[in-house]
């Protein structure tokens, strides 16, 4: 019990963020019409590319004085993350473009 309480106190900010984000995520999505399921999935997918920030930090502080496998993998992570972000937003935009065309 004590351990649990310590854990909660140390990570209280994070736990608040998680709890509220889950709520916001559910709330924001719950009334979406079926028409938008695919674009929404694709858009959310692009947002999950936020891991790219991690990639930037990783490679940003990498030691460049010697060649290492870690550096190569870090760069690969960055490329993967960018694919997710740029590709994801671009595909979503292309899908939504088609809906918009009809509205004129």
């Amino acid at each position, binding site marked *: 019990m004590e351990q649990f309480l310590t854990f909660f106190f140390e990570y209280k900010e994070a736990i608040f963020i998680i709890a509220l*984000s889950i709520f916001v*995520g559910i709330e924001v999505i719950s009334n979406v019409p079926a028409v938008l399921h695919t674009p929404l999935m694709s858009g959310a997918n692009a947002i999950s590319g*936020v*891991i790219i920030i991690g990639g930037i*930090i990783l490679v940003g502080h990498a030691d460049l004085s010697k060649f290492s496998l870690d550096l190569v993998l870090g760069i690969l992570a960055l490329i993967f993350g960018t694919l997710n972000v*740029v590709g994801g937003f671009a595909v979503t935009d292309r899908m939504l473009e088609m809906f918009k065309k009809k509205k004129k």
Partner: protein
Amino acid sequence: MDKVLGTLNGIEFTVGDTLLELSYLIAALLFVFGLKLLSHPETARRGNLWAAGGMGLAMITTLLLHKNSAGEGISITNIWIILCAIGVGAAIGWMVARKVKMTAMPQLVSLYNATGGGASMLVALLEYPAAMAGDIQSILVTVLGLIIGAVAFSGSLIAFGKLDGRVGDIMKPFMTYINLVLMVSTLALAVFIVISPNPPSEMMWAIYGLTALSLIYGVMFVMPIGGADMPVVISLLNSFTGIAAAMAGFIYNNQAMILGGILVGAAGMILTLLMCKAMNRSLINVIIGAFGGGGAALDREQGNIKEITLSDAAVLLSYSQKVVVIPGYGLAVAQAQHIAHELDSLLESKGVDVKYAIHPVAGRMPGHMNVLLAEADVPYEQLVEMDNINPDMPNVDVAIVIGANDVVNPAAYDDPSSPIYGMPIIDAHLAKNIIIMKRGMGKGYAGIENFLFFNDKTRMLFGDAKKSITSLVSEIKSM
């Protein structure tokens, strides 16, 4: 930028540090706002751009303002390397996204989800050695990010392969047990790593083993799931990618990553459940994959199949007042959406009222059919969702079912033994006449007989959907 503003918990913070956190707050708000706008048809496109803007902001400020624990910023050389990597990824991502065919959209989403999961996996793998021995919390988030990212990576790749027709379904009863064993051993190894007091440098064998196990589990997890359920799985894996990104956010104590990741995790989970609901299936059911075959035990007088000639179909359609087109995946496969639009404009010019009835899971993903028809320039107003068209069905003169099967199967109403019993369907059987365009007498995804084909009001038009509609169009024109 380097001006010290004050100290917090004994650590100095500068103008740059503050601006960085402020930009993360703005990015996080843009994610939430973007997602909100994305769920309404009128604002969806703007929402996507807002979220993209948030991402761009967070990337730029991280590049310029981020400092490591020693207080060093990112050096110029590192910035160049990062920009090159981002340039490569962006160029490929952009080109593929612009060029790919609309019908291939679902597998592309899956592929991009795989890259996101892969990035999370790599980041966790590379950050693990930096963890302090016995620091249970940071090792826990690293290990979770690694497992979830790896499963999302390999699972999404398999889902991509399946949707693209490169990987077939392998469904063996014993696979459930293999998966169970894999899952238990992955979790056991994870617990072992987390509670081990050894420094990470002595645990690298375990972390590589964990990566391998998670990757294999991802493959085995998606392998037995049937093609029709792929959208649900992709949505689920999308949710995983979000959670993996959030775990990586904990490694860096980065609020934008945590919020963005959890947001996608929660939204993806809800979307997954919404899709399951549209198909009247539980998530467990989808994952275990107990679909297809079986059922259809109800013995019924099959009756006869009646075909219709092109000229009869042309006459029937031209002299109708109300026609409803019910498109299914077969229409997308035959690439018949453009010619279908030609048919509906032709009929409209003859004074026939034509509507498209869209089942929530028509196509390969929910909403996919709308995208395909929108691409073919079918006006938005002509697409009617299932719940809105059903009450009107008895007034419809002709329902044309193109490449759809399970979504019009009346067994969903009256055959409790059928696997699709209870699934909402489009009430094609209530229309005055029904024309079914089909390649042959094959069964739908669910692998069950459709008694609509034997209905007295039903006429079959066999052949490739695109060819059939093309001939139908010229037949009507020559009348």
